[in-house]
């Protein structure tokens, strides 16, 4: 077995040193009825690298990759180009095969990238502090809701109709378990401002998303003002972090907590994970924040260095009083994010965001020109919702036959909400002019 260095002679010699006859002795505490005499039944034995790779390639080849042709799926995960350098960096042994930097003297590499990541995320969002990342945007959103209840000592959260329904459901799961009331506003393409009308003295926070799941951009400043007037917090959510290259930031909108998905920078689509949840807040709420934080300090020689800090919020110290049960961050995805962001810089990010926005404008124009198509989003970044006279299922299936993956049917996200004919489509820098043209032509044929 290629991964196991012990030889039969080694094993015998080690048993002798230990004074045991066989490894069976080490399992002496296992109840007799639960001891397996041989390998677990109904499972194959070991295979060589060639055989395993062959099997995995066979499975992979059954999937249609985003790069295989015109591709316009968004709704919380986005197809972007990742510079080759990023993957090279995250495959460095010293990053890939290390763990949580519990011993900072031999983990300054990981810790410094964490500190740089926190700084980048804070600057992108215009917020005061960022943590070292969460599992993904949806769990970051759920944790934000629970945190807002801790901060305000109130017990109700209100979620907008444009919040990604996976985020809303994830938040509902965590809130219900914690005894928090959840108010979900009706799904709406352009309804984020409705949050302002749902604030009373029980509401801990309102959660709005921009761009929302339909692609609509909203300045949430008025919602923030209404929330603050009512003693509640504004939580803002984004699923497309590239939008922050052009969009008004959560900080500029007065967000108290801003969370989102960082996948678009550095992390491949990967069928939904692992991704990297971004979590930021005002510094006055720092002690209520979930997740890992890295801070600057000095070593015994007075040299600058970094350590994990403020761990008195965390489960290993506070146990059942911790701010969250989270015990990791999304380490390697965080590294991919920060490396890609470093390659971009402000200049590259603004440029990238502009290309995305222009692609979406072209898509809206091309599809909007098709007879029967009505574009529903009026302010958007790189994603739009549109309606056709036909059921979205039928339209997308017909497009798929022409090898165009045209987007997500809104009813997959919101069943029974009257969105049967609505499609949500994203265009990033990866969507070429000919992809967009092919989409419009195919759509015209389908309709």
């Amino acid at each position, binding site marked *: 077995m290629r991964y*196991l*260095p012990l030889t039969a002679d080694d094993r015998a010699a080690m048993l002798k040193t*230990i004074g045991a006859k066989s*490894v069976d002795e080490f399992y002496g*505490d296992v109840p007799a009825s*639960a001891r397996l005499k041989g390998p677990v*039944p109904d499972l194959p034995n*070991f295979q060589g690298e060639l055989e395993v790779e062959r099997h*995995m*390639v066979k*499975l*992979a*080849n059954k*999937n249609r*990759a*985003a790069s295989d042709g015109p*591709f316009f*799926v968004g709704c*919380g995960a986005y*197809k972007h180009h990742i510079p080759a350098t990023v993957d090279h*960096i995250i*495959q*460095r042994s010293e*990053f890939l*095969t*290390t763990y949580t930097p519990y*011993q900072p*003297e031999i*983990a*300054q*590499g990981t810790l410094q*990238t964490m*500190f740089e990541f*926190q700084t980048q995320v804070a600057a992108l969002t215009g917020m005061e502090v960022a943590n070292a990342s969460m599992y993904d945007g949806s*769990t970051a959103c759920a944790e934000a809701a629970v945190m807002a209840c801790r901060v305000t000592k109130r017990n109700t959260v209100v979620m907008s109709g444009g919040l990604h329904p996976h985020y809303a459901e*994830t938040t509902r799961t965590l809130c219900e378990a*914690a005894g928090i009331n959840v108010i979900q506003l009706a799904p709406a393409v352009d309804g984020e401002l409705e949050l302002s009308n749902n604030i009373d003295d029980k509401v801990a926070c309102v959660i709005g998303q921009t761009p929302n799941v339909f692609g609509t951009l909203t300045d949430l400043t008025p919602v923030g003002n209404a929330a603050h007037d009512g003693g509640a917090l504004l939580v803002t959510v984004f699923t497309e972090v590239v939008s922050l290259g052009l969009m008004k930031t959560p900080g500029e909108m007065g967000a108290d907590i801003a969370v989102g998905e960082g996948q678009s920078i550095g992390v491949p689509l990967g069928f939904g994970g*692992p991704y990297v949840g971004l979590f930021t807040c005002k510094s006055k709420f720092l002690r209520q924040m979930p997740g890992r*934080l890295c801070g*600057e*300090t000095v*070593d015994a020689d007075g040299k600058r260095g970094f*350590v994990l*800090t403020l761990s008195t919020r965390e*489960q290993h110290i506070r146990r059942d009083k911790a701010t969250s049960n*989270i*015990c*990791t961050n*999304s*380490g*390697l995805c965080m590294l991919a994010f920060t490396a890609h962001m470093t*390659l971009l810089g402000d200049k590259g*990010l603004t440029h*990238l965001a502009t290309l995305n*926005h222009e692609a979406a404008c*072209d898509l809206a124009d091309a599809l909007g020109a098709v007879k029967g198509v009505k574009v529903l989003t009026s*302010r958007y970044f790189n994603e739009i919702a549109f309606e056709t006279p036909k059921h979205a299922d039928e339209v997308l*299936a017909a497009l798929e036959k022409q090898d165009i*993956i045209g987007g997500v049917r809104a009813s997959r996200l919101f*069943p029974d909400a009257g969105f049967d004919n609505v499609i949500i489509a994203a265009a990033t820098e990866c969507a070429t002019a000919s992809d967009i043209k092919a989409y419009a032509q195919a759509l015209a044929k389908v309709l």
Partner: protein
Amino acid sequence: MTMNSTGRPTSFSSSDSSAATTTVSGSKGLLQAEGLIFEIGSTGKTGVDLAKPKGTKNRLGGVTRGKPTGLPGLTEPEAVRHYVRLSQKNYAIDLGLFPLGSCTMKHNPRLNEKVARLPGFADVHPMQPQSTVQGALELINELADWLMKLTNMPAVAMTPKAGAHGELAGMLAIRAALIARGEGEKRKRVLVPISAHGTNPATAAQCGFIIDEINAAADGRVDLEDLKAKLVESSDIAGIMLTNPNTCGLFERDIKEIADLIHKAGGYFYCDGANFNAIVGRVRPGDLGIDAMHINLHKTFSTPHGGGGPGSGPTVLSEALAPFTPVPFILRTSEGLRLVEHHSEAPDSFGRMCAFHGQMGMFTRALAYILSHGADGLRQVAEDAVLNANYVLARLKPVMSPAFEGYCMHEALFSDGFLKDTGIETIDIAKGLIDEGYHPMTMYFPLVVHGAMLIEPTETESKAELDRFCDALASIARRAVQKDPSLKTAPHLAPARRLDETRAARSPRLRWTPEPPTLKAAE
């Protein structure tokens, strides 16, 4: 001194070879000094070349960014150098033995990295039509099948994104089952051993449960008498969270009796599967009477730890808890595999735990690992991991203080007993190991052992590596007993000296700013 024909010395002079050297650059030979990107980059620079924008009038509806990010960029050569220099300040499994107990730092096979990057896995979108991702769904099902067979459990929730998230899945399933029984309000008490990992009580509390701690017996296992006493009044019992093998590296020999007691009390048995790597292929937790258990794919099945994540925590469930499994999950139909994504189709499900379908990138790696080992190889994995740990225990027993009598499972636990009256503490032993070229063991965990040192060598270490490590640790132990003061200031040879953690917490500086650090105390 010998010279070659050009006058270049070909042997070294021994006079000043050990002199301490300070350098103008701050670098030390191969170890390069490296600033923050905010100090070495600039906003005008970028490492990407993108197509020229057309100049379309924007349709952002006025929701535009006021202030630029101010974030610096680096060109590609500068960026590569930045991260490579930083990487060299990290210890890693690929460098040497990484005996961090309860973390299972084993070799990460590179085949797994290769297959995870196949475009058919890495470049597929979670929301693209299900007809176009049948291979991805098949892979998830195949891994699920292995996990169920290895544990002898009838169901598995694949979406949890880490071990602690898996714990949450299990406890939410228990909560949902209690509610379905009409006992959700009544049964709120969860028993948790004091030796448990902090995530256990934190998770239970997140689900609205009240934690009741059970004592540890002198042999490092659950104190069965204390457990029984806590069950005398049992109408409020929701369940127990028990790690097995436990955090002391020991198998809970009364586990079946504990399962029976909990079930008789009307509660459920959550088993923390963090240490499944010690028993995989030799013991199936389903044969022990458990109701739920998460499996850390990054531990038992060697997906890379990546500097602290991402993990993956599929959670196996018993017949009793299976109906409450989170969405989405996969159904096999006559037309192929299909995702059940909504509560309306799975009314008993406790709901959704995250966007999309779990840690696919970890599933591909874990399946490659599992197929490579097979049922026979996985059994050998557990046996070698346990053998290696017992070897370390046997070799260090003469110079250190084993926390408990007898054999261990996959990790060897020592107390700081041998350091009594030396002035040397567990942390000093750990830092001494750094100078010897090793990552330290887990220190001060589990909490039930004073000054705990938890050593998990894993099965991917050779006997020669183990001997080298034991020699190094034994020498440090001997130096400690002789009160060697240099241990108090170790490490001396690492990229950094001991760091001031108190200062970091007292005046938190969590992001770079152009101004010098403020030192005022935070609220």
